[in-house]
C-alpha cells in the first residue's frame, strides 16, 4: 500500500534506470525476480512501482550483457525460482552507472536550485 503523501511513479522510469535499480538490488546478494520487484518497491518507500512484467525483459537484457548470471534455486517458502546474481562485470557496471546517475542528479539539481 502506498503511503500517504508519496505518489507512486509507475511506468515512466527513466530509460536505463530500471537496470541500475536491479543491479543495485543484486549487489546485496542473489535474488529472484519476485524479490527484486518487491525490494525496489520497499527501498523506494513505494514511490517506484515496478510493473513486474517489465522486470523480466530487463533481467534478460542484463544477463545477455553478462552483467548478471542466473541459476535455479529454492525460495524461502520452498518454491523453485530462478535466482540472479551480479557478475564482476555487473559490479563494475553498477559503480559506473551510479557515478553517472549522481552526475546527472547534481547537474539537474544545480539547474533547478541555483545556489
Amino acid at each position, binding site marked *: 500500500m502506498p503511503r500517504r503523501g508519496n505518489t507512486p511513479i509507475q511506468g515512466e522510469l527513466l530509460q536505463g534506470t530500471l537496470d541500475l535499480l536491479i543491479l543495485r538490488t543484486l549487489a546485496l546478494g542473489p535474488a529472484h*525476480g519476485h524479490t527484486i520487484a518487491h525490494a525496489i518497491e520497499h527501498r523506494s518507500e513505494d514511490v517506484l512501482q515496478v510493473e513486474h512484467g517489465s522486470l523480466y525483459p530487463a533481467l534478460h537484457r542484463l544477463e545477455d550483457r553478462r552483467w548478471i548470471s542466473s541459476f535455479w534455486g529454492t525460495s524461502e517458502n520452498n518454491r523453485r*525460482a530462478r535466482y540472479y546474481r551480479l557478475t564482476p562485470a555487473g559490479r563494475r557496471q553498477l559503480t559506473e552507472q551510479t557515478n553517472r546517475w549522481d552526475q546527472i542528479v547534481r547537474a539537474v539539481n544545480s539547474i533547478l536550485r541555483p545556489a
Partner: protein
Amino acid sequence: MSVRRFFRRAHWDEERARELAAHLAMETDDNLARGMSPAAARDAAYRKLGNTTLIREEIYRMNTIGVLDTLCQDLRYGARLLRVNPGFAAVAILSLALGVGANTAIFQLLDAVRIRTLPVSHPEELVEIRIAGEDDGRSGGFTGRRPMLTNPLWERIRDRQQAFSNVFVWGSPQFDLSAGGESRPAEGLWVSGDFFTTLGINAALGRVLMADDDRRACGAPPAVIGYGFWQREYGAAPSALGRTLTLDGHPYEIVGVTPPGVFGVEVGHAYDVAVPLCAEPFTRGVRTGLDRRDMWFLAAIGRLKPGWSVARATAHLNALSAQIFKDTLPNYGPEDEKAYLGFKLAAYPAGTGVSSLRETYESPLWLLLATTALVLLIACANLANLMLARATAREREIAVRMALGASRRRIARQLLAESVMIAAAGAAAGAILAQSLSGTLVAFLTTEHERVFIDLAQDWRVFSFVALLGMAACVLFGLMPAMRATATNPGVAMRAGGRGATDTRDRFGVRRALVVAQVALSVVLVVAALLFVRSLRNLVTLDAGFRQENLLIATLDFHRTGIPEARFESEYGRLLDRLRGEPDVEDAARARNVPVSGSFSNRKLVIDGTTRKENVNFNWISDRYFRTMGSALIAGRDVDKRDTPAAERTAIVTTSFSRVFLSGQNPVGRTFQIDEAPGKPRPVYTIVGFAQDSKYADLRDPFEPLVYLPAAQDDQLSATLRLVVRSKLPLASVTSAITALARDVHPAIVVSFRTMQSQVKDSLQRERLMATLSGFFGGLAALIAMIGLYGVMSYFVARRRNEIGIRMALGADRPEVVGMVMREAGTLIAAGLGIGVVSALVAARSARALLFGLQPHDPATLIGAAVSLSAFAAIASYIPAVRASRLEPTEALREE
C-alpha cells in the same frame, strides 16, 4: 545477441514461462498471506505481473535475429510453393539450368584457354621473347606450332641477354613411336636445358631434364615423359624409368615423369615426350635446323629478373637486336635482308602461356559467351513473365495480407524467396550440366589429327561465375514481379471480383514488353545462327578446284631407311608406278604440299624482267596430279617424262595467275623467273600448261595465283614422299595396300594416312563449332520466346473472356475473334522483330571476321530469320486465338 541463443530460442522461451509461473505463485502466496481469498490472490498477482504472453514475446524477439528468422520462414515457404507446383518449378529450373550451364561451359573453356595462368611457379614473371610487330620479312622453313625463332638467333639471345634470370626455348615436333610401317604419332617437345628449372616443374618420378642434358652433339639423350603418356603407354608403372623409348627410330632413355596437369607452356597441347633440343638432328637428320639461319621452329620464354618490367626487358632486347640479327643474317634476297636487319626483339607477357588454340578460338568463344548470355536473358524474361502471372493469381491473397498489416517489403521478400530458390536450384543444376557440356566442347575441338588438351579444372573463377549468374538471374526475373505485385492498393484488389481489376493496362504492359524483348533477342540469336550456318555451308559447298571424295593422302617417310638421298627420286617413281598398278587404285600422284593441309610454299616472281611484289604460291607435283585431284587442265600439257632434272624448267599455272600477271591471256608459252638471292642461279621457267584455280593453304583464302612445278625438277630433296590416291575402295583396304607396298620397298618406311575429306572437315572445325552451337542456341532462344508469346496470348484471351463473349453474343463470328487476337499478337511480334532486326544488324558486325562468303548484314539472312520467327510466332498465338473463338458466349457472360 548471441547466435547460440538464436538457435535455442525455443528452449529459452520455456525457461521464461517457468520463471513467470514461479513469480505468479510467489505473489499469490504473498497475497494469501495478506488475507486475500485464493481467487482474489491469484487475480491480483496476474494484474500485477501484466500480460505474460507479451512478456515472453518481447524476450523471444530479443533472442531473434530478425532477418535470419524471416528468411528461414520465407525459404521454407518458397520451397513449399515450388513443391505444390512441380510443373512450374521444373520448367523454371530447367530453363535456368540450360542458360547457366551453357554460359558456364563456355566460360570454363575461356577460363582454361585465355584467363588462367600457367600451372608453374610465379607465372606472372614469364615473358615470351620474339620479333616485335609484323614479322612478314621472315622467309625460309617454318615448322612446329610456334615458329618464332631460329636456333642461331636463340643461341645469341641466350648468351647476351641480361634481363632474365632464366631463359629457354622449345619446339613442338611430332615424334613417331613406330619401328616402321604405319606411324604412331606422339606429341613431342624439344626443350633447351633450362626448360623445367625455369618453369619450376619437378618430376613426379625420376628427374626432369637439366642444363647438362642439352649439350650440342649429345649422343644418348634422356627423355622425360608426360603423366598422361606414362599412364597410356606404361600403365603408370614405375618401371618405365630406365626403359628405352624409340622416337623416329632413335633410342632415348626415360629418366623421369612429370606430374599430372603439367603440359608445358602451350595451352591446348600437352606433351607426351620432352627431349633436349640437342636431339633434334636425330629426327631431322641432315636437315637439322640447329645451324640453319632460316629454319624457324623455336619459341623462347624467359623469367624476368627481380625488379625488371616487361618494358625494361623489351628495351634491353631492342638494344641487343641490331647486332644479333646482323650476326645471324641468312642468305636472303635484298628485300628480305633489309627486313631481317630491321627486326627488333621484344618481350611479351606469357603468364597465361602461349597458344595457337587461343588465337583461333578466343574471339569465337567470347562471341559464344555473348550468345549464351542472351539465351539466359531470354529465359529470365520468360521466368519474369511466369512470376508476374503467378503474382496476379495471388493478388487477392497479397491484398488481404497487406490489409492485415503486413509490410510491403515483407511480402516482396517472401515473393523473392521463391525466386531465390529457383535461381539457386537452376544455378546448381546448370553447374552440373556445364561439366558434361564443356567436356563435349573439348571433344568437339579435338580432331582426328590434333589432340587437344584442356584442363577443365573447377577454379574459384568458374564458381563465382556460376554464383554471379544465379544472382543476376534472380534479380532479373524475381525482383520486378515482386515489386509490382506489392505495389497494388489492397482496397482496390479486394473490391474487385474474381478477376484482377488491378490488372490494368500498365501491369499487362510489362508482360507485353517482356515478350517483345524475348522476340527481339531471339531475332538476334537466330540471325547469328543463320549467319554461321550459312558460312559453314558456303565453305562446305564451295568449289575448291578439286574433288574431295575418295581421295586419300598418304605420307611416306624415308628418313630412317638409310637409302641415299640421290636414290630417293628413282625410289619414289618406282613406288608410284607400282601403286598405280594396284587393281583398285584409280589414280595416284605426288605433291610436295597437299591442298588445305595448311602447309604451303611461296616465292616472288620476275616476269618480263621486273620483280613483282605479289607472293605467289608454289607446289611441286608429278604427272597425273590433276587427274587424281579431279582438277581440269584447261590448255597445254601435264607434267610428263620430259621434265627431268636436266631438262629445261617447265611450269603449269592457274587461271588466277593468268588474271593477275598476264591480264587473262593464255599463259602457255610465256616464261618467268623466281626472285632468288643474289649469286644464286635464276633459271627461266617456260609455262607449258594452264590449269583451273585451286584452293591451297586454306579453304577460306580466295583463289590466288598458283604455280605447279614438276616434282622431278624440285631442287629441295625431301625424305618424305606425299601421295594423293584416288580409289573407290574402303579406306582400310587402300591403306593396307599402300603400307604393304611401302614395307616391300623398305621396312623402315613410316606411313601415315589421312582422307582429304577429314582434312577439309578438320580445317573447318571453328566454323562447324560456331554453326552447331549458335544454331542450337538460336533454336533454344526461339523456342523459349515462343513459349513466352503463347503464355501472354493465352493470358490476353483469358483476361478478355467477357469482352469476347459480348462481342460474340452481338454477332461477331469466329474469324473476327481470331483476327482480334492475332492483331494483338501481330503488334507484339512486329515490335519484337523491328527491335530485333536493328539489334542484329549492330551485333552481327562483331562476327564479321568469322563469316565466309556473306556479309554481316546479309539481307537474305535477316529476312529468313524474320520470316521463320514470324511463322513460329503466328503458330504460338494462333492456338490461344482459336481457343478464344470457341468460347461459348453464354458461359463467358454468366461468369461475370
